[in-house]
């Protein structure tokens, strides 16, 4: 019985492992799966990437992604050829074109504030006030008035009765009441 169970579990594990493996996109220096190529096109795979997959993300803690941002067009290929020579002969425009071929955004661009916090704050306040208005509306139009026992007179009477019954006399409410002086203990 136990043997069968373990065998079954083992088979399940192997099956699931195979399923995961089939979906994962292996990236190696020695040729790339067609599946990857359908996603990234002709983009050059230049590194391991942050998770071993051929994808692009601008991340400050992992600045060099696995693939180049642009596919090698003839223009870019010509620039790459020129890049093999002296870099002092490259113009600023060419250097910038090369940078944009490799990377989508500069650090200052992808770290620039988006201003999204304003909409978040706005939505939060809007929905909070909506909830408060709903509550006020319910109080005004839906709920009955609170029962009589919520009134101050009734509450006093109830407290008096609790003390008269000497509820919880050791550590509780009645222990704080001085029955001689008919007042709270000081």
């Amino acid at each position: 019985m136990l043997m069968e169970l373990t065998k079954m579990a083992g088979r399940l594990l192997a099956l699931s492992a195979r399923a995961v493996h089939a979906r994962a996109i292996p990236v190696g220096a020695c040729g790339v799966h067609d599946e990857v190529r359908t996603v990234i096109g002709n983009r050059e795979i230049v590194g391991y990437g942050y998770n071993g997959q051929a994808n692009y993300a601008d991340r400050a803690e992992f600045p060099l992604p696995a693939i180049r941002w642009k596919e090698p067009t003839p223009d870019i290929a010509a620039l790459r050829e020129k890049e093999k020579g002296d870099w002092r002969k490259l113009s600023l425009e060419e250097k910038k074109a090369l940078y944009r071929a490799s990377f989508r955004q500069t650090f200052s661009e992808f770290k620039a504030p988006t201003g999204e916090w304003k909409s978040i704050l706005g939505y939060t306040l809007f929905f909070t006030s909506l909830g408060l208005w709903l509550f006020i509306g319910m109080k005004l139009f839906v709920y009955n008035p609170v029962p009589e026992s919520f009134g101050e007179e009734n509450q006093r009477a109830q407290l008096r009765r609790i003390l008269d019954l000497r509820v919880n006399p050791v550590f509780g409410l009645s222990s704080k009441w001085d029955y001689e002086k008919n007042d709270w203990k000081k």
Partner: protein
Amino acid sequence: MFRTVLVRANSALKSSINVTKPALALGSSRHMSKESTETDEEFDNRYEAYFNRADIDGWEIRRGMNDLCGMDLVPEPKIVIAAMKACRRVNDHSLAVRFIEAIKDKCGGKVNEIYPYIVQEIKPTLVELGISTPEELGYDKPELALENINDD
């Protein structure tokens, strides 16, 4: 049926406990990760040598740079210089620019103290190799507005 399973599981458990007990008593030293005994100097030399390797390829350069960016430090200028030269050997100018940007980002709140020092130290190399700093390329400020990736 379940009784058999339980009995077997119980005996299996017992035997495994009996096996592990003496092993625990014997091996009092723990096999855990060790604290690094590498000094800062050794670290710097290690990375300088890593980038100075003559046949280093772009894959390894990126690995070294990404690793450095994941650490709680700003790389020494001599590491940066070695990395710049490695970028030159694999003919990737934008890689060098990106690394300088990343170093600037690593300076964090002390960017006005550390970054000028690093630029000052690596400037001769930059001039020699013809590498433009991010400032020269105008990348210290956002150049392009954010494109929405879904707008194509």
